[in-house]
């Protein structure tokens, strides 16, 4: 376990994240331009989706794919209910703010997912290629759960047709599922043609992206320095609880060790792209600095540094992989 944690902490991706975090905390002028950050994220989403599709074309599809998708949707819908109860107990946030935070913890962080696939690759552990599709399926249900939690009180969220369209067809989901489909259709032959672009440079691009994530997380921590101990504790405890639920679900449906780890990471991570945008439209009165600081400044660094090795250790222990 300690070896795993140390190897993860000293990997180029985690050290790049730490560099960004340090630069932001000492108020360095180091920045990644918005357009460059978006280009890096497009590359990562395309590469991870494409490789997942190729893996499915190699191994074919079976009932496990449908079962995993269904499990992902159920987890995404249920995790906010647990997060809501926990954050109310630990911090006493209002119903509105607690529901907005809870929505983030049912949805997923695709960068944490990408970092976990990178750790699996380094450890020589394979996983089901379709987990990329599970990641996409887990983006939206949590938003509905958060709005349901709010509607039980005096207020209600604003949910219109435009917001539905924006959630279901947001750029990350379209790109992830689109590249997954391209990889599935073209298979190994397609991968051979573009592997020099999407395989070899992948780790380097991920390092640069995590440098940017470190900068964003550091800025969030600086501005959210007043986060209460209860909220901070929630940001660390909730991913561990989520991962344990993901572990149980993954083992129950028969995923491989790598697949179980990825489901744990998806259940443990909190969204910082799709859900914040949806919450700003649907619940504008909720305080964005709370959910963004928790998601980006606490849970994301925890998962990246300590969470992933801890989850991998637990997944290997339970599955015997």
């Amino acid at each position, binding site marked *: 376990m300690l070896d795993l944690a140390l190897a993860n902490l000293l990997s180029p991706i985690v050290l790049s994240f730490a560099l960004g975090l340090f630069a932001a905390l000492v108020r360095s002028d180091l*920045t*990644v*331009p*918005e357009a460059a*950050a*978006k280009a890096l*994220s497009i590359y990562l989403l395309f590469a991870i989706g494409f490789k997942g599709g190729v893996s499915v074309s190699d191994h074919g599809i079976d009932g496990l794919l449908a079962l995993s998708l269904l499990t992902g949707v159920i987890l995404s819908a249920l995790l906010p209910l647990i997060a809501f109860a926990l954050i109310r107990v630990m911090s006493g946030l209002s119903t509105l703010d607690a529901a907005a935070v809870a929505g983030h913890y049912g949805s997923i962080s695709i960068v944490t997912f990408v970092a976990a696939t990178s750790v699996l690759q380094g450890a020589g552990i394979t996983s089901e290629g379709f987990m990329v599709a599970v990641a996409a399926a887990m983006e939206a249900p949590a938003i509905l759960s958060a709005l349901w939690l709010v509607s039980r009180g005096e207020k209600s969220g604003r949910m219109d047709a*435009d917001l539905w369209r*924006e959630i279901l067809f947001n750029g990350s989901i379209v790109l992830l599922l689109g590249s997954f489909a391209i990889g599935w259709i073209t298979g190994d032959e397609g991968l051979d043609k573009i592997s020099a672009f999407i395989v070899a440079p992948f780790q380097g691009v991920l390092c640069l992206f995590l440098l*940017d994530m470190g*900068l*964003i997380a550091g*800025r969030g921590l600086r*501005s959210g320095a007043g986060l209460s101990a209860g909220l901070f504790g929630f940001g660390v405890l909730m991913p561990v609880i989520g991962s344990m639920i993901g572990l149980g679900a993954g083992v129950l449906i028969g995923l491989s060790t790598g697949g179980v780890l990825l489901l744990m990471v998806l259940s443990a991570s909190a969204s*910082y*792209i*799709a*859900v*914040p*945008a949806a*919450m*700003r*439209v649907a619940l*504008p*009165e909720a305080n*964005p*600095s709370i959910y*963004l600081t928790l998601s980006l400044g606490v849970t994301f660094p925890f998962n990246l540094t300590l969470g992933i090795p801890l989850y991998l250790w637990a997944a290997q222990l339970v599955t015997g992989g």
Partner: protein
Amino acid sequence: MDTHKAKRVEIIIEAVMASRLTNALEKAGVRGYSMLPVLGGTGRSGTWSRAGQVGRGEGMVQVVCLIRPERLDGLLDAAFSVVEKHIGVVSITDCEVLRAERF
């Protein structure tokens, strides 16, 4: 050269609300507007920067429109229905334009 009195309305609003705002303005009869990126800033809701952002949840944009003074109330009613509960600033200044028929 002849100039004509007009109102310049500047609305800084969250990027996620931009299309909803411009749709409301168009429905209220606004014939034209410009949308500008906002690099960063600070205010009641905290400090933020456009640098490095990959999502739309935190970004802000500025919508600028020039209109005839008699159409100002309709525009403000439409804008307020969208921006009421959101982070942002609405400001109005007097200005002059060269070609009044365009506004």
